[in-house]
């Protein structure tokens, strides 16, 4: 096991090398440049040349790349060029990463606490009314585009509504039920986070429910379950010890990889609700060719996925003895 982890860790720099060099090359050789975005319609060849020189963007690829890696290894991830001029990228990321991680983590926790049990029961009571409604609901949850869901829920929950009954000249205002971020993000435990977290957790709920259900159905059809039942084991033990544990193996993969996804912000959700997370930063960075922010975001995501993969690999043999032998 230890050897396996060490082998994985040796791979990390290799993965990072490819990720960074590809991202860097795409930025540098792709169309557009941060200097052009900065200058907008006032760009002229002389100014572009002058600024490229001052920022070292006219240097050969390998010089820029090695400079960047050298600085990054010392903890300097460069400075923003366009959107937050001269602010250290490390600080910009550090300000926003915790917001996104907390948001995603809570969405994942809610997604699992709701999704896994629902899927378990749906699989257990296959084709019952319960199964049918769970399947329909999860299908709906995964099919409604959040770009549509967000404004609808915001309208319903974050605005006052006037109820008028003309009969009795009766007027009553209900809501708003949930406050909006409005420039003051107060963390994931605030009511302002409820709607974005709910929306982000919908995807998790849907995927986990369907996976867990499929897993249960698959496992319940296996010979060892039949054997367990045949030898007179109590149904509770059959399900908990044999079926559930095995059905959870693919869930582990999903959850493990989702842990890697924690550092990826949802651009749509973060922008719509005004949440200062990594997603909105990354979007700004991509559209304005902010090389160094793009690099930093990519590196963080790559590292997170490498570790998430490692975690999954590490958990598999514990959950499934069959893997241990090979």
């Amino acid at each position, binding site marked *: 096991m230890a050897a396996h982890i060490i082998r994985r860790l040796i791979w990390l720099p290799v993965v990072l090398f490819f990720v960074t060099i590809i991202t860097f090359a795409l930025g540098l050789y792709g169309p557009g440049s941060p200097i052009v975005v900065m200058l907008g319609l006032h760009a002229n060849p002389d*100014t572009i040349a002058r600024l490229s020189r001052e920022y070292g963007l006219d240097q050969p690829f390998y010089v820029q790349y090695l400079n960047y890696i050298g600085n990054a290894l010392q903890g300097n991830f460069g400075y923003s060029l366009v959107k937050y001029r001269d602010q250290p990228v490390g600080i910009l990321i550090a300000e926003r990463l915790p917001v996104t991680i907390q948001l995603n983590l809570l969405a994942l926790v809610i997604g699992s606490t709701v999704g896994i049990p629902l899927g378990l029961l749906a699989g257990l009571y296959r084709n019952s009314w319960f199964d049918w409604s769970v399947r329909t609901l999860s299908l709906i949850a995964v099919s409604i585009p959040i770009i549509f869901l967000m404004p609808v829920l915001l309208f319903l929950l974050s*605005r006052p509504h006037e109820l008028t009954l003309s009969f009795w000249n009766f007027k009553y205002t209900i809501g708003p039920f949930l406050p909006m971020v*409005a*420039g003051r*993000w107060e963390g994931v435990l605030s009511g302002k986070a409820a709607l974005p977290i709910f929306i982000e957790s919908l995807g998790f709920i849907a995927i986990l429910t369907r996976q867990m259900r499929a897993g249960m159905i698959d496992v319940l059809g296996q010979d060892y379950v039949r054997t367990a039942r045949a030898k007179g084991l109590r149904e*509770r033990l059959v399900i908990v010890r044999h079926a559930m544990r095995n059905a959870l193996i693919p869930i582990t993969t999903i959850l493990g990889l989702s842990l890697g996804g924690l550092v990826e912000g949802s651009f749509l959700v973060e922008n719509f609700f005004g949440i200062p997370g990594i997603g909105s930063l990354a979007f700004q960075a991509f559209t304005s060719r902010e090389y160094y922010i793009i690099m930093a975001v990519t590196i963080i995501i790559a590292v997170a996925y490498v570790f998430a993969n490692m975690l999954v690999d590490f958990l598999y043999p514990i959950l499934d003895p069959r893997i241990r032998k090979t």
Partner: protein
Amino acid sequence: MAEKNDNRWLIGVVVILVVALVGAVCVGAGALLVLSQQTNTAQTSPVPGGVSTPGSSAPKPGAQPAATRAPSQAARNVLRLPGDEPPTLDPALTGDASSAEYVVEIFSGLVMLDKNLKVAPDIAESWKVSDDGKTYMFTLRKDARFHDGRPVTAQDFKYSIERTANPALASHTAETYLGDIVGVKEKLNRKAQAVDGVKVIDDYTVEIKIDAPKAYFLAKLTFPTAYIVDKNNVERGGRTWTDKPNGTGPYKLKEYVRGQRIILEKNDGFYLDPKPQITTVEYIIGGGSFMTMYENNDLDIVGVGISDIERVSDPASPLNKELFIGPRLSTGFVVFNTRKPPFDDPKVRAAFALAIDRQKLVDVVYRKIPSVATTILPPGMPGYKELDSKAAYDPVKAKQLLAESKYAGKLPEVTWTTTGGGGSAGPGIQTMTAMLKENLGVTVSIQQTDWATFIGQLNDPTKNPYQLFDIGWIADYADPENFLAILFRTGSTQNWAAYSNPDADKLLDQAGIERDTAKRFELYNQVEKMILADYPVLPLTFERDHWLTKPYVKDMLYPPLIIPRLRYVSLTK
């Protein structure tokens, strides 16, 4: 049988868990809602990580129902606006409206634009121009001070200009706004150490020499690039000194939380009248649904987007009384690249231009958000003159012109390039290509590209690969030169159509140095007519902003250019 029923407990446990979870979330959200409403109204909580100075605003504790929130808003003297995240708060690096919005309130310069967009005294109380029009002598006010109380002197101005021209700062606006000053270009290109054109005569007198007489030079000095910064502030603060700027403007930066908000506080020591009246101005910069916030009384001002325009324009809507429509010194153009066939033939350009029904486009597709453009200069721009009351549209003549052109019957493929990344181009472009198809029988294909790529191709008119494209120009300063010479003078970088007309060039140069304003504008109107007759561009729309303002906000200005405006505004109960 018993075993079959045995796992019923599972369903029970799960249902209880789910109910408990949902309940907990609701209760938690409810409790936090009450709490956050209290803090929202009172705003007493200092926010961790911010640069807030505690105890400066008088809090009104206690939650209040939504209906009574508005008056308390005025009582607290806080104005809440939607804002954009500023790329920088450094005047020397400010080249965009988002940054300028804050920079013009926090800093100031020798001259400024007043409410009527006229150049007015600011830190300089007066100035004299030499007879040859190349030397400006400014006399500075003696009561102008930085926010920390230090008096502003001529040395501060010289320091600020030389800092902006310092190549290591890599200011991208230095050439545009300060390039006329003798020595600035040399310093930017590392050919000189100092800027010779700026001379300190004494503490309150400064002399500026420019390379040629230019009637629009003062207008350029109103831009943040020429603003004054505090040397101590800059040098001590390092690369991120603007986190705590020590400016000279009517407002001070109280708090800036990136991605969330910018809070300005009035500068009681401000030297001009009227003095700032509103104590605190809060910009929400994190995005979110501004229209909903406005309707919930969480914002005092909001810009109206296309999806709300119909609702707000309806006279029956209560919001209609709060609507203000203002021009934005900006013109949208269809550009014909005169170096690329078939648009090297003026007849083809005229044919394309006359085949587009601008009035219909604006009325139907753009829902009258902009107005129809018939001139290059937008309304509100000094020197603007309405040349045509109606937008010319003549499909018969268009067809005839195309038949007379040298490309008659053998028109090469025409591609319209536009910015965008969606599945299909915007409805405006699609409508115009449909009009061209209907009126001229020409099939124009549409190519979409993202903004960064698009503008990357435009910065050299001789290499611009696009045949036909649409683009807008927003005034940098309120002078016709900023449209007519910048966009149409031979050799100008922003001459997107690569238009070249020696007669127009002569008139433009003449207007550039003419010191009699009336005569100057007359020259510009003449040249504008000349350019329009050649159809290097088709002026399409004059952009307009639609704003909603709460009735208790008095004297809010929506000028078409960024000017320091907050000190005029007040809140009434």
